[in-house]
């Protein structure tokens, strides 16, 4: 389980997180929604230690996220970045097998390549993609490679940062379905941040809406439409009028 308690983070005078409280039960898929610049990515990166919070507590399975062996801690996570964040200088299979080629999870090269090709197949990519470089792939293919890399070491917890941004609706649907299938199949705990409502409905067990640095509403995805929360209603229906200022 991931637990964030009263997490605060400011960048200069910009108070991004003002006391974030969030619980993600083990084996569930939590989607965090909210407008651009509301701190969704910051929240996600504080769990991984990519950003250090100013105050508050982050626990993963009851243990503080910033204590213990960092490599062991990170080995439990997989992450799909918004732009893919694939390494340009490495081929697709080397990107996917990155973790399996070095460090504590190191395997022989042939075995790592085999696993990489299997993971590529799992996300719908043919083996001939394996020896290409990321720059030779379309945006949708890069996202799939990023997804394959995120699941290559079979992590217990997977983070998805804006998984469908920049993709056409059909490719978005494909990525959403893949994420849902993989999370269910692996029994992983998932945390996704997005403002794409089709992703929310496809991926989420639970939804949390981040607004003004705190969780404005959270609950099961089935309750989202009848929440009665004016902020959430405005967001999910994409209305310009409402308590959330359209121009921020």
């Amino acid at each position: 389980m991931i637990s964030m308690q009263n997490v605060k983070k400011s960048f200069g005078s910009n108070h991004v997180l003002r006391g974030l409280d969030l619980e993600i039960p083990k084996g569930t898929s939590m989607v965090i929604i909210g407008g651009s610049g509301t701190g969704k990515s910051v929240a996600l990166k504080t769990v991984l230690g990519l950003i250090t919070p100013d105050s508050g507590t982050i626990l993963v399975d009851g243990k503080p996220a910033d204590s213990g062996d960092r490599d062991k801690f990170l080995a439990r996570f997989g992450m799909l970045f918004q732009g893919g964040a694939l390494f340009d200088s490495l081929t697709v299979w080397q990107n996917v097998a990155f973790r399996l080629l070095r460090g504590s999870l190191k395997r022989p090269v042939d075995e790592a390549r085999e696993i990489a090709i299997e993971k590529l197949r799992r996300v719908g990519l043919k083996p001939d993609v394996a020896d290409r470089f990321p720059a030779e792939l379309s945006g949708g293919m890069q996202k799939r490679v990023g997804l394959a890399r995120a699941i290559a070491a079979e992590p217990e917890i997977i983070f998805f940062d804006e998984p469908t941004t920049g993709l056409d609706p059909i490719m978005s649907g494909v990525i959403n379905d893949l994420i849902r299938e993989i999370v269910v199949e692996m029994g992983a705990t998932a945390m996704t941040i997005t403002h794409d409502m089709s992703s929310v409905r496809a991926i989420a067990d639970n939804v949390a809406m981040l607004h003004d640095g705190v969780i404005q509403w959270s609950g099961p995805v089935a309750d989202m439409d009848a929440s009665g929360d004016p902020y959430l209603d405005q967001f999910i229906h994409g209305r310009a009028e409402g308590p959330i200022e359209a121009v921020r």
Partner: protein
Amino acid sequence: MNPLSLLARLGRAVLVALAAVGRVTLFAVDTFSHMLRPPYYPRELAQAFLQVGWLSLPVVGLTAIFTGAALALQIYAGGARFNAEAVVPQIVAIGMVRELGPVLVGLMIAARVTSSIAAEIATMKVTEQIDALVTLSTHPMKYLVAPRVLAALITVPLLVGIGDIIGIAGGYVVATQNLGFNPAAYLKNTVDFLELRDVVSSLVKGCAFGGIAALMGCYYGMQSGRGAQGVGRATKSSVEAAAVLILAANFVLTGVFFSL
């Protein structure tokens, strides 16, 4: 202007400069500590050797040969004013080995390697590849910075040595083909005049300049701001800082080696 506000401005500027020196020093210490501790990344180190060393050879060679050739012409023309044309081999050798070889190679490395390291790492930063490395349990200082700096520390002295030889060869060709020097006498004068201290100073300077060039590229790359402007600023600042620090280090090292 109020003298107190002038003093305050000066104080702020000094504090900013000292803070920058402190950050770079901490970055350098961190880099060296990562170089010494496992895990090591031999593939990245081999690539860095290729990029910093092997692929810099053409530009270093061309720079050195033209500099050596021009130096021979200048010394001959200048020496002719007081009947000292004969000193061409000695001055070309000492000029190339003590000063021009290390400094020009250092500046070429700053232009070629520092800029490329800074742009590459800065781009990786703005496209979240550095964050991706961290989530894949790989320390960016170990994976990106340590191999590049180590490769520069080892290959730039070699490049300087090669540059020195090519520069002297450039002078030799001009002197023997255009200025009427005897080839055997030219070589003998060159070898006889050079001291071990000259060669050691050249290689030590190469090592220092290589370290400075790679460190500045990595430092500014890792400190890069967002977007294309951030990458551009990181690249520009890294080359400026590397060039100035190389020239300053050259002055200090020349003092250390030759004013004793």
